[in-house]
């Protein structure tokens, strides 16, 4: 299965990455070779094999749904690129 520059551009759009037009051919070529590598998966018979998402098949522990932390908004927003009165500032979304 080969991928086209159009496919890669679409995946990039899904991933919110901007690939320069001049780089697209090169990115597509490498992407295609990685796909060739991972396509070796299809040589393995996985009929009736349960997918493994955790190496110990552990399920995640739950804790009681109670407040455990105090408000640290100011501290957490100290590393933010643009904030005002506790809000994150972004470009205007709705005119």
């Amino acid at each position: 299965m080969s991928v086209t520059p159009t496919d890669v551009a679409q995946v990039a759009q899904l991933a919110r990455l901007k690939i320069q037009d001049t780089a697209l051919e090169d990115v597509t070529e490498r992407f295609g070779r990685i796909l060739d590598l991972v396509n070796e998966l299809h040589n393995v018979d996985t009929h009736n094999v349960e997918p493994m998402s955790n190496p110990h098949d552990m399920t995640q522990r739950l804790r009681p749904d109670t407040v455990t932390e105090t408000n640290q908004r100011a501290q957490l927003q100290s590393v933010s690129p643009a904030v005002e009165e506790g809000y994150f500032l972004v470009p205007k979304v709705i005119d």
Partner: protein
Amino acid sequence: MSDASLSFASIAELSAMLETGEVSSVELTRHFCNRIDQYDGCINSFITRCEEQALASALAADQRRSSGDATPLTGIPIAHKDIFCTQGIKTSCASRMLDNFVPPYSATVVSKLDAVGTVTLGKVNMDEFAMGSSNETSFYGPVANPWDRTRVPGGSSGGSAAAVAAGLVPFATGTDTGGSIRQPASLCGITGLKPTYGRVSRLGIIAFASSLDQAGPMTRTAEDAAIVLSAMSGIDPGDSTSADVPVPDFRALLNADIRGLRIGVPQEYFNADLSVEVGDTIHAALAELEAAGAQLVDISLPHTHEGIATYYVIAPAEASANLSRYDGVRFGHRCDNPIDLNDLYERSRSEGFGDEVQRRILVGTYALSAGFYDAYFKKAQQVRRIIANDFKQAFEQVDIIAGPAAPGVAFKHGDKAADPLTMYMEDVYTLSVNLAGLPGMSIPAGFINGLPLGLQLIGKAFDEQTLLNTGHCFQQRTTWHRSQPDMTRLTA
């Protein structure tokens, strides 16, 4: 003790010297800071240094020791891989994306090591977001291998490995998603242990692939790894995948008597891809363990090769999800003058991430996208179970598994960087261990043309003790782990 012998002393030795008062933590801290001043210009292992804070911690550690409240690690200098969040100290993950990130909290591993009194000298270099096997994808430039500065230290924990190998710090933390502790440990001639998945909390470790990531010690000796592992490990309410398994005092239980130990030797690790020199060195190391009373057993891990394909679906898929948080809104790099929200996302991410990180995000996004999920992500998770079952079957016959940690010794800068696929093969012997969630360790096993090579030991889940015992036994009988690079040649 002379200054020179301090540089390459083990934690156990330094700890004994601190205890007798032969040296103070402040003296040790000054000594290693001077070493970094002297040599790191050639190595580039440190991204951020914090000498002032280190001296304050060292003073506190000396006071703690004099009040009789010390642990073996109290007052020992350490460097943290720059993937561990350190409150108030820049944590970049070697990415432009986080070049301005000063975490408001510390990773559990950092807090635990702070609590026993280690002295943080700084944050060390790595491949960007831990994606790489040569430390060449760092935003802060490549790291040189102390054994030959024209060569790579391995990756992704390349700064940690190089700093320990060059005697700039007695030990460092690392993380290992597909081999990122063991492969650089092999290439730099140090001891590196990736614990069982769940043994060490992942809270505050910048996530790459959450079902594979695990932090561990990078040290000179197996004994030191035992000391550090006990201090790093344990269940953490802040990481729901951390395991509720008791943490032994690994050092107290160290037992170098490995008579009767059954060591599995997987035939797939010694196929045509492995060079004759590497094969010979590893076989000689195995013969040493056999001479110590272990029994070598031929085993098979039939899906070793398919591990690469499996890993390069699962790791990028999990990475693409984890790295979606870097959107230029709440923290990290933000592009200048965004036109609209989408432009803000796309330009912030494309400017902030390097090529390899973007490549893996693309592959992961593809593998998780509608229409391909079953063919790639689900399929990879199924093969992952088959690989884990291969290990399970092997461990019915043997106590541990041994083989090479990497296909070769350190390679030249630039040799593999142009071709991602060639680089991916560096982890062929290590990544299936992450897929199966097992502990793995690399210990110095010999030299080829003056460059170190590691023996990899793989254990049953939560049986790090047997790895440490085997490593300790090997290090009682050999001196490879005591070899030091020629620092005059390094700076020449």
